């Protein structure tokens, strides 16, 4: 018997306790919709999270869920896959959880290519601990722990993921429901670790931090929507584009039809080109648009599958433990 589940069927009966207006609500809604559209079952789906506002996420799902400890969700999720590779495992994390205290686990889950869907809510702030700057906060961020402004450089989440060896790296924005659903579906379809950074607005401690590229009035000029095989065009009139600066490994913004620039000069997005993905991940306003969508997708050997294949290759499972402990040199003592 197959029942078609609706988005609401993926919501738990628990009252959602994020601040009113938090971007997390929109991501939760997108995930409900994604799972319904994918037609997955609740019992085979597991959400694992760490600590932070975003990590409350599993409690609001009607699937299996495990709200673990700060930064460790990728490790716990890896264990779930080691025990049962058939489960569909999502990791929900944040910029502090996944890139600061848990940076090491994010790194290794990605490089191993464990078949996990990792969704990192990036709000560039520590919300649950009341507003300290985070590892993705821009230089100069004033916060309770940096009253004069932060002096450390932020980490770029997607570049970090690419550097760690992630084979699926994408970006979306909390408020872009259809786009977010599409990206999450792509992530789910990718075999191996998929990494999705979602720009998420913290209405209380960092409100509007992404306005420079997410606000209605800036979005068109400051967002580059990536589509595999299509030219890297953006702007209200879709006449601005990216090309390689002649003789340099560097992107530049050009306008089609100006200074002799034709459509042929614009780079075409290639999801399998890691070097391009690295360049795209690093683009920042005001000079460049922010690249949104699938930056990189190129499947490769997947840890949990290969591990279980290795176990199968070791030979048939045995259960004669008397034989096991009697392996090697034994001797008999008679009465």
């Amino acid at each position, binding site marked *: 018997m197959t029942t078609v589940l609706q988005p609401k069927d993926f919501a*738990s009966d*628990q009252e959602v306790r994020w601040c009113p207006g938090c971007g997390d609500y929109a991501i939760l809604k997108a995930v409900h919709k994604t799972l319904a559209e994918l037609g997955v*079952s*609740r*019992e*085979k789906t*597991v*959400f694992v999270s760490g*600590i932070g506002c975003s990590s409350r996420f*599993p*409690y609001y*799902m*009607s*699937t*299996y*869920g*495990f*709200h*673990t*400890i700060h930064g*460790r969700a*990728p*490790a*716990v*999720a*890896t*264990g*779930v*896959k*080691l*025990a*049962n590779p*058939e*489960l569909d495992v999502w990791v929900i994390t944040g910029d502090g959880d996944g890139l600061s205290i848990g940076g*090491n*686990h994010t*790194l*290794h889950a990605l490089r191993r290519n464990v078949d996990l869907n990792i969704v990192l809510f990036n709000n560039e702030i520590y919300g649950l601990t009341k507003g300290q700057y985070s590892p993705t906060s821009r230089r100069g961020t004033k916060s309770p722990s940096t009253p004069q402004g932060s002096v450390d450089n932020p980490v770029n989440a997607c570049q970090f993921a690419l550097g760690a060896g992630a084979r699926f790296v994408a970006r979306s924005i909390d408020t872009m429901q259809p786009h977010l659903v599409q990206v999450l579906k792509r992530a789910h379809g990718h075999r191996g670790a998929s990494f999705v950074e979602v720009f998420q607005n913290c209405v209380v401690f960092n409100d509007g931090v992404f306005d420079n590229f997410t606000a209605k009035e800036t979005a068109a000029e400051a967002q580059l929507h990536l589509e595999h095989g299509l030219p890297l065009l953006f702007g209200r009139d879709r006449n601005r584009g990216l090309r390689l600066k002649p003789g340099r490994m560097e992107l530049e913004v050009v306008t089609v039809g100006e200074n002799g620039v034709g459509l042929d000069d614009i780079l075409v997005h290639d999801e399998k080109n890691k070097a391009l993905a690295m360049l795209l991940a690093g683009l920042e306003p005001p000079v460049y648009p922010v690249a949104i969508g699938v930056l990189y997708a190129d499947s490769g050997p997947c840890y949990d599958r290969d*591990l*279980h294949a*290795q*176990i199968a290759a*070791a*030979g*048939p*499972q*045995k*259960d004669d*433990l*008397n034989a*096991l*402990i*009697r392996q090697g*040199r*034994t*001797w*008999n*003592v*008679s*009465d």
Partner: protein
Amino acid sequence: MATPTVSRPREVRDTVVIRFAGDSGDGMQVTGAQFTIETALAGNDLTTFPDFPAEIRAPAGTTFGVSAFQIHFGSQEILTPGDEVDVLVAMNPAALKVNIKDLKAGGLVVADTGAFTERNLQKAGYESNPLESEGDSLARFQILKLDITKQTLEAVKPFGLGQKDALRCRNMWALGLLLWMYGRERQATLDVIARKFAKRTEIAQANAACLNAGHAFGETAELGADLTGYVVPRAPVRPGTYRTVNGTEAIAFGLVTGAKKAALGRLVFTGYPITPASALLHTMANLKQYGVVTFQAEDEIAAICAAIGASFAGALGVTSSSGPGVALKTEALGLAIAAELPLVLVNSQRAGPSTGLPTKTEQSDLFQAVYGRNADAPLAVLAAATPADAFECAVEAVRLAVKYMTPVILLSDGFLANAAEPWLLPDVDAIPGFPVSFRTDPTGFYPYLRDPKTLARVWAVPGTPGLEHRIGGIERSYDTGHISYEPENHQRMTETRAAKIAGIAADIPLQQVALGPTRGSLAVVGWGSTFGPIQQAVKLARAEGLDVAHIHLRYLNPFPRNLGELLRGYQQILVPEMNTGQLVTMLRSSFLVPAIGLSKVTGRPFKSAEVLAAIRSRLEV
């Protein structure tokens, strides 16, 4: 050239302690391990003590690069690696310098004179050759000076080895001689050599030739009183099939057996390389055909977290480390306690704090195991007494973990992990099962529904329709498992977690007395790998007519329910520990008994003489 002689009569010995000592590149551990197997096959009881430096290859010839392997064997029950050494095989001056102090007066030194070069003597800090000087510190011993280096080079000549490879066969020559000396066979060693160097036949042949040459030297050399053969009669042991086992192997077998007895199809074993625990990860990695999945994690924290994730998903999660690594796992242990998931954590303790002495043994993580977490976070703690006992302890750790849905810490230590002894192989099929039943019925399901007797919550595994639920580290409602910040609920949950672990006391055997009366003048109470020296010391003390008993604890949290009453039956309680007094503090605080500690933290096991002296002193003998 020695001429064949009629075999000289062998002298009979009850027990013998041999220490093979050399440079860390001299193959002393292999030598010791092979001597152990041949000795076990000869029917002696035995205990071994591998003792090696933390450095993999410390500068050759230095005292800090000395690696040693001690074996105590005999025709009676052998409980310890031996207090004093009867025979010291010294492959170089540094080995002699470091180990001579443990040789008993009149003991035998077998020294490779070929390695006593000026340079090696200098590196060992000798001003003159101790083998040559008259009336010096070696006067109390018998010295057998043999140019093993030269003999080895002779023996390997036909195989065309380079100087370096040729010299690496010295240990086999020495082994061959010692095997002759105690009337051992060589076949098991020849088999191992053939297997190990299957792809380099010239090396295999050279090693075999050296082994045989060393043996033949003993058989034929005319050395008069210098070289005597011995016979050590078989030990009267219980009939059955035996093998040698060290603590690491025994724990691996026990974990696999436990998972099978729990009817769990998969055991996920996670670890991060750390001395002396890594060997368990290596051993488990070769048990893939027995339902084992191994995972070398990026760090200690990831290792335990992956084990917890595996348990959440319905496998038996097991992780292993040593003290510093366990410290890193602490927060995650709290999660497993809160989430009430089964987990086994094996701690192969080493000397600390911090990096401490990674290859030296200690039992100083008892407080860490029992108390070392934030908040009220109880879990069960067991400790293995001997390598063979470690098998049973591992099975028991799994039983408690799955029955009570709790993390269980199994304490081993660097000595137990590496020490080997003969193991009377159990019939695994005869061990009672404790099959887990996963919850499948959605009717009335809550994730924290408890068994009224054990207080264990249900184990509902992802993939089961209708049981979808969320758990985590935030305090949860007693009934539903939903997040709860209610003050009374937290009180109740804290008490429930404590009661669940305390309740295990009703499910474990009453504390027995290992040796001696159940009440009297003095009880010597131990735990873990001090079993051997304490047992031996109590045995000797009782033979002297002293009123003393040995009580050895396997269960350290909770304690057996009769322990307090038992302890109060003795006028004095002595607690020898390889720490500065952890169990003694726990016994005093738990039972208000006037227990006294005996501490040793040198990185080496107790000698039975040390425990015996403390017994005599308590009883004012």
